[in-house]
């Protein structure tokens, strides 16, 4: 057991164990921070920056998912500045690729759409990039639509860390980055993919979806991954 220290979370004094992340502590204390790249059961990458918090004494913002708690930290999670930044991040997600909810298979079953509602996004202030993005339907069971990918890399991590296949990777830099199968092969030609479907289940948007699904009946269960990982630890 690690050392127990005192912190302040939104003005409330807490005793917490050193070594845990701020996100962990927030969740235990019932403070619901928005996340997108974070998924229980997978490694943390701090990519989406939605869970940023303020720590007194520092001018910068910290991603709660990767920042460990420290003694006497005074953490703020719901300031106006943070809310503004979170909304901006979500707007940038929408501006970067081609998210058209009205015709998306994930309409009403999309973490990005839910998040946009949650942060109060009623319009996007940034010019849309409208990039040309491909759709890979070469796999017999599922589709990869780059138009709707936000590069959270959940698919990459679940494939590597939970399934052990490491079919997915990210190629390119900046907003030209794309998730690729193997060495940038059509997904259906992948020699490593086991067709387990975990990547589809963890994808927060309509970027990865089963061919059998239609708008209105898409159901994903990303929470199953955390359960699976926990069960494996129990059995180990």
């Amino acid at each position: 057991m690690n050392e127990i220290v005192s912190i302040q979370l939104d003005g409330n004094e807490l005793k917490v164990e050193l070594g845990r992340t701020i996100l962990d502590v927030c969740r235990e204390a019932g403070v619901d921070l928005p996340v997108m790249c974070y998924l229980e059961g997978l490694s943390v990458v701090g990519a989406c920056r939605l869970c940023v918090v303020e720590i007194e004494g520092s001018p910068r913002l910290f991603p709660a998912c990767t920042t460990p708690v420290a003694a006497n930290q005074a953490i703020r999670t719901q300031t106006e500045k943070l809310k503004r930044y979170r909304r901006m991040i979500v707007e940038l997600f929408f501006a970067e690729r081609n998210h058209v909810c009205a015709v998306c298979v994930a309409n009403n079953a999309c973490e990005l759409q839910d998040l946009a509602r949650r942060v109060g996004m009623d319009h996007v202030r940034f010019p849309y990039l409208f990039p040309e993005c491909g759709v890979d339907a070469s796999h017999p069971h599922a589709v990869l639509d780059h138009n709707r990918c936000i590069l959270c890399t959940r698919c990459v991590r679940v494939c590597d860390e939970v399934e052990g296949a490491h079919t997915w990777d990210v190629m390119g830099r900046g907003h030209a980055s794309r998730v690729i199968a193997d060495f940038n092969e059509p997904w259906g030609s992948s020699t490593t993919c086991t067709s387990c479907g975990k990547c589809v289940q963890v994808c927060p948007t309509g970027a990865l979806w089963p061919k059998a699904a239609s708008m209105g009946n898409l159901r994903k269960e990303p929470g199953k991954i955390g359960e699976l990982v926990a069960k494996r630890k129990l059995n180990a």
Partner: protein
Amino acid sequence: MRKITINPVTRIEGHAKITLQLDEVGEVATARFHVNEFRGFEKFCEGRLFTEMPNITPRICGICPVSHAVASAKAGEMIMKVTPPVAGELVRRLIHLGQHISSHALSFFHLSCPDLLLGWGGDPARRNIVGLAAAHPDVARRGIRLRQFGQEISERITGKKIHAIGIVAGGMLQPLTEEAREALRAWVPEARETVRLGLELLARHCAEHADEVRDFDRFETLYLGTVGPEGEHELYDGRLRFVDARGGMLADQLDPARYLDWIAEQPVEWSYLKYPYYRPLGPERGVYRVGPLARLNVASRMKTPLAQAEFERFRALAEGGPVHGSFRYHQARLIETLGCVEEIELLLDDPRITSDETQAQARRNQAEGVGCSESPRGTLFHHYVTDAGGLLTGVNLLIATGQNNPAMNRSILDVARRHVRGNDISEEALNRVEGAIRCYDPCLSCSTHAVGSMPLVIELRNARGDLTGCWARGTGG
């Protein structure tokens, strides 16, 4: 030679303008209906998965989204080689009939009744549904309720009045609940009475303006529509029938999937609407019409008793042959609406309709699929070609208004020749020219795959094309 332009045409779905070319003595020489909007659905749908199309293509239009969804789902089912379960077909048919009612109610009560009840020369500012509500509140209210009934069917099944989610390749995502069935059934008698009110209003108008209705325009064309196995009137699923201007059978029980064997299109430089024609007879003699008038002209009978009685009265107008007057589109539309209400009652009484088994599953089993349904404005085709993964490599949408395009131009010419002479163009004359278009209830959103309404602008041009006069009415842009 002078040219008059009506731009845009009002109380239709979408943007358009009319050009009337006058000769040296001020008589109308030619008339052209220009559709100047372009939307490009056929192009940007390429690269999408064919199973997404029942959700994408309804976005072409908010008036007949169900017809697009149904045609799209059927094209998908052909690609998958799958037949939906009975309940899926029945529920889909129910929503489709509901959309016909809401669209036909909109066309007759909201868009056309102002002309019929307030007069062609009435104040343009009041010659609309609001003016109708002030002058004839009961007619307006009941018309609005009828439209609501059609949309309620969709809402009760899918949770949405417009752009319903749940019509998919393979059937329906949602079943019809017992509660919804009871609620809809309770609405049927009111809907039936409203359609009969519409038919009475129209009959009165026709009796009071017999000469005008007869002479509105009456040029002869071929007709295309879907019929059932015994030639009965059909809106949801069936085979194609072409009849000639005398009612002779040109072709019957055609497989809609082979529509290109029978229908050809030629582009024209002055409109985004192409000119389709009946291929065996060529572009000149092959002009055909679709929609309510055409469907009643090709059908051997209606499926339900009240609609059948009205059908017999309708066909008696031409002694059993095709009825050519475009004004009769209104009557045909109301007869169809009556048939829809009756068929809905029958469907709601079918015990199979509330089964939970509404969707069949399958994968892509062939590259190509054609889906056909009778939309409120006429026969609608969706034609998809896919690659091995199911992504669309080719999309062709043949829309009802597009097929009526050659005939609409003829109707405008007919009406304009009777009502437009020389420089002095009355507001009533312009409205009558527009009214000829409105008979077809065109949906330019669909046919160009465009939305909106704009004020009316008329330009008068001399033989060299110089602007010599301009009239404008309406607001907005």
